């Protein structure tokens, strides 16, 4: 697919762009102002990219000139590429003014290749973009046909690639311009002229590239596209007859898409960890919505709840005309697990997932019924607040109390049942400040606990003190500073503090309950 006037078409959509005068964009090359892109009107006057602006002005004094915006053009093209994934997940960028769509196995969904092309061209025209599209068995042949056939849309029939390429200029082989000029100088103007040239001779003079490009165009060797977005293995799509404008409509379509996706997942024995809903707007934008799950799932009822409140965030613009639902991230999920998970609401007690959340550990007596599942809650919280904000504490080896615990993602079962020795209350501080707070303390002498200290503008007179317990710095972690001497202090009111002295200064690190 080629967008011959991509840059100027974009300009034409802007309100300050004159409709009745030729439009060009310019860029500065080696101190000269050259035309970067010219619209159809300018093209009719013979103004082409690469012209000097002064020459073009001589042809048309009323030329409307805009600065080139290659970055903006590229961004817009990428956005268009995303939108094109309504036709196929495999969309690749082709330079600054073209796209490759691998429609293998997709065309029938749109009524065949011709119908798909017409639909795409029609929609692009609706966005204000002139386009030339070709369908062929190889990317190279499609590229050549789109750019060098005058027709707006071309189908290169299978088996007809050779004849169809023959009359096209060698420039259609995507060779560097120097090489093209050299070939033309030798009289090899058309691709057909190359058919009879011995490969060895061609390679001697031009290297491997012309032969390789020719083979790629003819489909003799494969040319893999590099899709802009990795295609998800599991994707379902729905084309809508009437554009949808409201979240309720989206929910209804989602309700149709989810069971289909879940069926595909079930057949593959997979569960989704991440789902992406793509909403294709009539104005050529793609609105995306993603939800994550803490554990693989293909329970459509549970998954739809995750989307429920987010659907409001999708801006339908002037309507949404197609939707895709993909599972870009999946993990194996056996039927057995699922059956057990569902069975828990029946007669089974929470033995099915002994390692997971909510399942009772050390059930007391026979009072505990079925354990309710925590996963739906974690998914709801995580999708709104971010899964990084949910954690479980995992003990770690470290001398320093602040490093002896690590925050692990919630929702994953604990690594292994590590029954931590139940420490009596009060043995560890319940509050531990992430950054120890400096306090002004008065110690009787070296190695003595403070007799009193000032914290948050209040003086605490110490009644009892236990300590010190020395913690050496973990030098292998690059820890600097001297050792910490920890004291457990109780003031006259009964407040219990965890204070440490380090190199002559005192810090409050935690509070005991």
């Amino acid at each position: 697919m080629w967008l011959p006037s991509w840059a100027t078409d974009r300009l034409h959509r802007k309100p300050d762009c004159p409709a009745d005068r030729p439009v060009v964009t310019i860029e500065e090359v080696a101190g000269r102002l050259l035309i970067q892109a010219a619209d159809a009107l300018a093209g009719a006057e013979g103004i082409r990219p690469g012209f000097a602006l002064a020459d073009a002005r001589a042809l048309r004094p009323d030329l409307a000139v805009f600065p080139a915006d290659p970055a903006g053009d590229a961004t817009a093209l990428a956005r268009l590429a995303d939108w094109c994934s309504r036709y196929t997940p495999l969309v690749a960028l082709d330079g600054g003014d073209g796209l490759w769509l691998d429609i293998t196995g997709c065309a029938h969904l749109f009524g065949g290749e011709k119908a798909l092309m017409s639909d795409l061209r029609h929609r692009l025209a609706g966005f204000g973009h002139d386009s030339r599209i070709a369908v062929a068995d190889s990317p190279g042949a499609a590229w050549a046909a789109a750019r060098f056939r005058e027709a707006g849309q071309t189908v290169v029939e299978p088996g007809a690639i050779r004849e169809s390429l023959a009359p096209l200029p060698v420039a259609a082989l995507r060779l560097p311009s120097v090489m093209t000029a050299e070939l033309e100088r030798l009289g090899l103007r058309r691709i057909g002229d190359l058919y009879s040239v011995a490969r060895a001779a061609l390679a001697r003079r031009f290297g491997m590239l012309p032969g390789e490009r020719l083979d790629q165009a003819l489909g003799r060797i494969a040319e893999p596209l590099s899709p802009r977005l990795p295609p998800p293995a599991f994707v379902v799509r729905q084309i809508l007859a009437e554009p949808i404008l409201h979240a309720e409509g989206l929910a209804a379509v989602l309700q149709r898409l989810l069971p289909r996706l879940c069926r595909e997942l079930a057949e593959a024995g997979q569960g989704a960890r991440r789902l992406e809903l793509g909403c294709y707007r009539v104005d050529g934008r793609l609105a995306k919505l993603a939800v994550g799950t803490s554990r693989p799932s293909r329970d459509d009822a549970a998954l739809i709840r995750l989307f429920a409140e987010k659907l409001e965030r999708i801006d339908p613009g002037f309507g949404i005309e197609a939707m895709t639902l993909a599972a870009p991230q999946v993990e194996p999920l056996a039927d057995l697990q699922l059956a057990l998970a569902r069975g828990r609401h029946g007669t089974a007690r929470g033995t099915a997932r002994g390692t997971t959340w909510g399942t009772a550990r050390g059930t007391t007596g026979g009072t505990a019924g079925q354990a309710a599942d925590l996963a739906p809650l974690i998914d709801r919280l995580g999708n709104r607040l971010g899964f990084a904000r949910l954690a479980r504490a995992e003990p770690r080896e470290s001398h320093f109390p602040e490093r002896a615990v690590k925050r692990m993602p919630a929702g994953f079962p604990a690594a292994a049942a590590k029954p931590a020795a139940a420490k009596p209350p009060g043995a560890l501080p319940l509050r531990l400040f992430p950054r120890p707070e400096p306090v002004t303390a008065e110690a009787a002498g070296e190695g003595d606990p403070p007799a009193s200290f000032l914290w948050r503008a209040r003086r605490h007179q110490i009644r009892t003190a236990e300590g010190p317990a020395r913690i050496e710095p973990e030098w292998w972690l690059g820890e600097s500073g001297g050792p910490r001497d920890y004291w457990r202090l109780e003031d006259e009111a009964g407040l219990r503090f965890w204070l440490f002295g380090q190199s002559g200064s005192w810090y409050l690190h935690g509070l005991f309950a």
Partner: protein
Amino acid sequence: MPTEPKIAHLAALRALISRQAPGQTALPPCPLGLPALDAALEGGLPRGCLQEVIPGDEGAAAAGFTAFLLGRLVKEGAGAGRGVLWASLGEGDLYPPALAGYGLDPGEVILLSAPSPAELLWAMEEALRSPALAGVVGEVDRLDLTAGRRLQLAAAAGGGVGFLLLRADRPAAAVSAAALRWRVRAGPDRTWHVELLRRRGGRPGRWILEREDETDRLLVASELGDGSAAPQARLSGG
């Protein structure tokens, strides 16, 4: 003093009134293992409700008492819910390993770092609606009547207990949607001074809790009644 049958009759009437919807069975209270408190609470800590815990000092006694109540709720979990969620603004300064001392597995407590007070309350409400949780703690800077009502309704639906743990001792509003309001401060020699400031349909009370030196069990050292400071006979239990 009302006679025994009268008290029983009153309790039955109260249970009838507090029943929110016909057909909904009242959740059994959670025994705290502290006879004086259990008696004052008519069986134990009520479930399916919102409770406020106000610190009486700048220490961690109120958080410790909350952790103690959570531990009891998890241990005596009558229904399905045994999970615990502790939500704070940002990372907070709760030190999870210390929860082990209250019968909670630190690895099983969900720690939530909320980005804003509003999101914290939203998360609490969601968590309270889940039947999987026995208790949900939210560390807040102030109490909000509307938010409290929402949390109370969510807790009644989910069956767990929501604790609004205030970050500092502030004069709390007289009106509250919470079923209970506690005020806790530290006392000398590892004791907690626990006040039940208000209880819907019940009387307030004051107790001093202390830890038994050898077993570290929590005991009621003295019951101070509802306002009078005269210590009564030393009660012990556990």
